[in-house]
């Protein structure tokens, strides 16, 4: 319990750091969002409106600590400002409408990739130097060397454009009405298949290698040899004895990799014009929509921190050493 609280404290600190970064970035960098927006309208705005814009971005003449407190209270109330690209919608509203798609695609991809990769790693370690162990890791590492979004482009070109097996983009077809129907669910799955598959393909190799390498050293340890000598079935030795301990580095790495995989998944969304955070991010970059960009950064950070905390819970379950909080 103390362990979980300690971790929670760390995540609160990280979230606080992210918010603070968000506050100071526009104030430290050359050129603030209001001036950038002002410049975009090339003289069609009066100098007075520049002041109004600055006020709207929270860049008032109040002392810095006062601006900071105002910003903090706004963030705590879920107020992330007004979007420029989707004016006059609130940033929180714009992000909220796209969050579900991103969580669906990235979440499914990360979990699938971790599960499949770990199982394959177990198999590769058990049948060491077999066909699986010789070819699969290098092949998957090769696929892992491609940028995620490039794999997405290739998949879209071959399977979508040339063979027409999959739709070319978006989360669902124009002619299906969203709702809790089987037809709609099937349509959504068809659209999500390629984005998910490319992220899985790009990340599979990492999980496989991590699991394989730990599994090999665990399989060589005395307690596994004893389990074998007792005549336990191979399945029991692998799953109940070896895998449970070998899983630990993979799970720890899972937390670390989440942010990275999510980043790749955002770029993949762009290729498929998938209406998630990645798509919003491009719109934000194109329109210099700083409030939207920063909002997305904040929301994704919170999602990653939350997922990391869940990983900590999993570690608590896997590793008894974390449970006796003698530290």
């Amino acid at each position, binding site marked *: 319990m103390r362990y979980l609280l300690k971790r929670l404290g760390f995540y609160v600190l990280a979230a606080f750091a992210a918010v603070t970064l968000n506050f100071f*970035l526009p104030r430290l960098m050359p050129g603030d969002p209001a001036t950038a927006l002002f410049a975009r309208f090339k003289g069609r705005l009066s100098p007075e409106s520049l002041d109004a814009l600055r006020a709207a971005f929270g860049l008032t003449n109040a002392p810095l600590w006062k601006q900071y407190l105002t910003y903090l209270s706004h963030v705590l109330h879920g107020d992330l400002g007004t979007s420029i690209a989707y004016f006059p919608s609130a940033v929180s509203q714009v992000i909220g409408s796209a969050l579900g798609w991103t969580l669906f695609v990235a979440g499914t991809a990360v979990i699938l990739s971790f599960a499949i990769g770990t199982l394959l790693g177990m198999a590769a370690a058990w049948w060491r130097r077999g066909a699986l162990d010789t070819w699969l890791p290098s092949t998957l590492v090769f696929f892992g060397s491609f940028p995620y*979004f*490039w794999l997405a482009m*290739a998949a*879209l070109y071959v399977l979508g454009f*040339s063979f027409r097996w999959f739709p070319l983009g978006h989360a669902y077809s124009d002619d299906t009405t969203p709702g809790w129907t089987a037809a709609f669910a099937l349509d959504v799955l068809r659209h999500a298949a390629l984005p998910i598959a490319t992220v899985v393909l790009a990340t599979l190799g990492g999980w496989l290698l991590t699991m394989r390498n730990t599994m090999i050293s665990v399989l*060589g340890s005395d307690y596994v040899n004893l389990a074998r000598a007792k005549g336990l079935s191979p399945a029991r030795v692998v799953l109940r004895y070896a895998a449970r301990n070998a899983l630990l580095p993979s799970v720890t790495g899972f937390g670390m990799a989440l942010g990275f995989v999510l980043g790749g998944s955002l*770029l993949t969304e762009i290729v498929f014009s998938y209406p998630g955070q990645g798509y919003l991010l491009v719109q934000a*970059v194109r329109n210099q929509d700083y409030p939207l960009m920063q909002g997305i950064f904040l929301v994704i950070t919170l999602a990653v921190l939350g997922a990391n905390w869940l990983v900590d819970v999993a570690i608590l379950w896997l590793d008894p050493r974390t449970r006796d909080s003698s530290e």
Partner: protein
Amino acid sequence: MKQPSGPSGSGLGSWARAIHRDRKGLFGACVLGAFALVAIAGPWFFGDPSALVGIPLQPPTWPHPLGTNGQGQDVLAQLVVGTRASLLLGFAVGLAVVLLGALVGVPAGYFGGRTDGVLSIFSNVFLVLPGLPLAIVIAAYLPASPATVAIVLVVTGWAWNARVVRSQTLALRRRDFVAAAVVAGESDVRILLVEILPSMLSVLVAQVIGSTVYAIGAQVGLEFLGLGDVSRVSWGTMLYWAQNDSALLTGAWWMFVPPGLCVALVGFGLTLLNSAFDEISNPRLALERVWRAHLASRGRAPERSTPVVRNHA
């Protein structure tokens, strides 16, 4: 780091031998060598990569072996010229990331206590913040240029290295030769520079390789988003224009396949090279190789068990 057992000479010589012995490592080195050659000499054989040389979106033909892009520029010329820009930035960022990581990680591991507490929390926070969104938020405020991309990648990429270097330093700190230096009254700076850093060289080299892979991939990602200078030719901006000109939906595969393949080949080559280095810097793997050679000399196939490095204290 202990010198690996088995036939070994001084640092670089033994690395070269290990790469030679390891077919994958050799392959990786060859791929990288070829790309380095292209990056150095290639641009001399091509004119201005931005020159308009033909009809836009021309499929590969003899005068333009990789076709033309949406503006009617030669894709091969862009690829070759882009190689230099992309590799240079990738390597520079890889180096800078490792330096920054060492700058934070070494003091944290060596001094321990409060220094370690502050530095560790700092790097752990950066480790858990999602890199790409953070990079985008910072890059968007800076002028679009290769320098921006480099700065942003260093800021978002150093934390992992700092963590690894910290734990390495922590392990070295407890070794006898460091304790001897402390007793001999050497200054902290001298111990760090003369005793600890050289012992970590193999780790740092491996980190430079790994970080370069990261830097090239992330750089391409940022440029693909349009956060680099899109008027400069590099692999990332080539992909940006491919997406912008809807290369996919017009079937112009020659616009996006070559730069992506190059990114993957360089990344794959670096990864193979790294695992070849690992063979010598990881005593467990080195031991296993010796064991297998020993068994083979007696005409026996190795079985499943793995020799384990044991610490008999």
